[in-house]
């Protein structure tokens, strides 16, 4: 944050989220999650635990609300589901929405969370001092704090052998959250750079998307015109930086796409496709 930088890019910094903010994005990683396909099997969550070295905290701490599931399946019983319990609950896979205008970023006192040119909210573990303001200001509540040092309790020997070497194990007092499997993104980007070609659609796949048995999760780059995720966003008329009407206001049953808490204008990078219920 040098003075030159501020002076030269002042007009860029003045741009709001509606004009794309002050970022020169290389990628805008995004997701489309089809809730119609989600069966609530928790495979995504499990895959996330394995990929990202998430500690298993145990029953007691889980009940206290100290679990570390970056990807969690939220289960809701709406009126219709209560009337027809045989249809099962509604599932909502919830992870960090990698907001374009993220509320967690400006409040961090040490700038441990910031926006990358990939459109991700990066969390710098080494910089985090654990003030936990970011989590308090997250409407999705998807930031998880290391309330304990889990290294010994969660990975007793020889289980530490199965830790993912591409990503660190966080110690107590540090905030963490879904990164859209940034280590996979980096690997693919590096490979594409070495081969002097752009990143292909489908080349990066997050652990959750990879594990989903029904392929409910589609991951990709919305700046890549031909990408699957971009097509889905376009098809359901969900746009970034534009205040969206909810799917109910669109009056078109085919347009099922929506982003959660759209009215807060935080510009999430995850589009959900509403579950369609049969009329019983």
């Amino acid at each position, binding site marked *: 944050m040098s003075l030159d930088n501020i002076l030269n890019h002042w007009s860029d910094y003045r741009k709001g989220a509606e004009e794309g903010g002050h970022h020169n994005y290389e990628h805008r990683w995004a997701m489309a999650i089809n809730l119609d396909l989600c069966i609530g099997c928790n495979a995504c969550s499990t895959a996330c635990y394995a990929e990202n070295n998430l500690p298993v905290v145990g029953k007691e701490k889980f009940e206290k609300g100290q679990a570390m599931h970056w990807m969690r399946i939220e289960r809701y019983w709406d009126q219709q589901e209560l009337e027809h319990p045989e249809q099962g609950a509604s599932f909502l896979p919830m992870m960090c929405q990698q907001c374009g205008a993220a509320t967690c970023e400006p409040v961090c*006192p040490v*700038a441990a969370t910031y926006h990358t040119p990939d459109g991700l909210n990066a969390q710098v573990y080494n910089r985090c001092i*654990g*003030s*936990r*303001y970011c*989590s308090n200001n997250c*409407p999705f509540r998807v930031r998880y704090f290391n309330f304990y040092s889990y290294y010994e309790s969660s990975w007793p020997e020889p289980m530490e052998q199965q830790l993912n070497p591409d990503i660190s194990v966080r110690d*107590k*007092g540090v905030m963490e959250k879904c990164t859209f499997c940034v280590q996979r993104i980096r690997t693919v980007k590096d490979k594409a750079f070495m081969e002097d070609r752009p990143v292909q659609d489908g080349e990066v796949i997050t652990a959750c998307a990879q594990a989903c048995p029904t392929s409910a999760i589609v991951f990709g780059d919305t700046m890549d015109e031909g990408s699957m995720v971009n097509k889905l966003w376009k098809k359901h008329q969900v746009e970034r930086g534009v205040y969206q009407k909810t799917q109910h206001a669109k009056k078109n049953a085919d347009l099922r796409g929506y982003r959660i808490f759209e009215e807060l204008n935080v510009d999430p990078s995850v589009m959900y496709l509403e579950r369609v219920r049969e009329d019983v």
Partner: protein
Amino acid sequence: MTMVTEKDINEQIAWAKINTDVLKSMENPRPAYWITLAVCIAMVACAALAEYIQYTVGMGPANLNNPHMWDMYIAAFVFWIGMSHSGTLLSAILHLIHADWRKPIYRFAEAMTTFSLMTAGLFPIIHLGRVWNMYWVLPYVSDRGIWPNFRSPLVWDAFAISTYLSASMLFLFVGMIPDLAICRDNTTGWRKRLYTILSLGWIGSDQQWRNFRKIYLLMACFLIPLAVSVHSIVSADFAMSIMPGWHITTFPPYFVAGALYSGCAAIITLFVLLRYFFRFEEYMTLPLMEKTAKLTFAIAMVWTYLNLIEFASVWYGHDIYNKELLIAKATGPYAWIFWTMLFCGSVLPFTLAFKNLRRHMPTMFVVSLFLNLGMFFERWMIVAPTLSMSHEPHQWDVMYGSIVEWAIVFGSFGWFGMLFLIFVKVFPSVSMYEVKEMVFHRKQSLGEEDLARMTDHAKPVTQTTGGEGT
């Protein structure tokens, strides 16, 4: 008028008696003092043990969890910051508007400001997940060119609190210099050495008094905007977020009013205690208590008004998250705290409207404690319910802190008590030179006839007050 207006202070008190009375309060602690001090230190020890556990194990033992990333630590932080405001009100604001009745009671209020700030400042540090890296919040020059995030209200907090703490400590010290000279001239041993250093060679010359007046006025002017800004910035910790129940425009004045409120209530508590234990009946008189109580009542009504504004704007604003949260506060799991807060904060202060009660010290003592209980609950109601019931219904949860968290919160009261107890025995808790001033001015206004009856303690106008350089 049938009733003669009661005097704030007996203007016939001899200056020598003022010195003796105040100096007497500083010597020979009674057993009760040592017992109270021991209790306070024990409370601090418990908190230190709890903090040790938290430091080594992590924030988990405090029962913090995913929606409740902040809890009692931040509530206590806001509470203690609030407590610190009344000292500035009494010593700086009332000084500027020439309300001379503040003179006998401002010193301990000013000390309270400093000590409650020293308590408050601990909480943002205690609540950090990685305490050992706390200095990263400060904008020091590092090799890597990394700065704190100047957009974060927590960084503003660090600036505001450290500025306010240093300014109010300096103000307390500067205001004490003439008194320290009196202490220097009347003590022996280590006290003499201490006061000699602290009184900075005060001999009470005209030049010294002139400089002293200037710097005191200057600091008073400097401190008032600081006091307002520091609590506005604390409120920005909440108001700058997007959370329901926090993102409220009226928060800065609401916090400042609440701060003055709890501070005034604490002044009443300490007023009663000092009056009783140090036999300061002649200085901390009933009319002064009445004035303090009236001030507290006025601020209580401002606080109530701001509360009503908040409720009304939330109710008619039709922001669904805010409105649901307000309903949940009033009817949900925190309802008992919410209604206790409103009772203690808005109903109980009406006892201050009755003259008989205002003059009844035990009643005032109990009422002031309940007022502060209400203010503590207010801070709890600001922090906890928003986290319990924010946007994401899946993460709704109610949490009460663990023993570790409560031990640290209670320990903070011990820490404050310890500092205050040490203060009253080492430094004069009543400003001797200003009481003399007050007595002198009151006496002057009595008229010629009374002037003739003056004792030789009250010399002509050119006489300096306090620290008669020997």
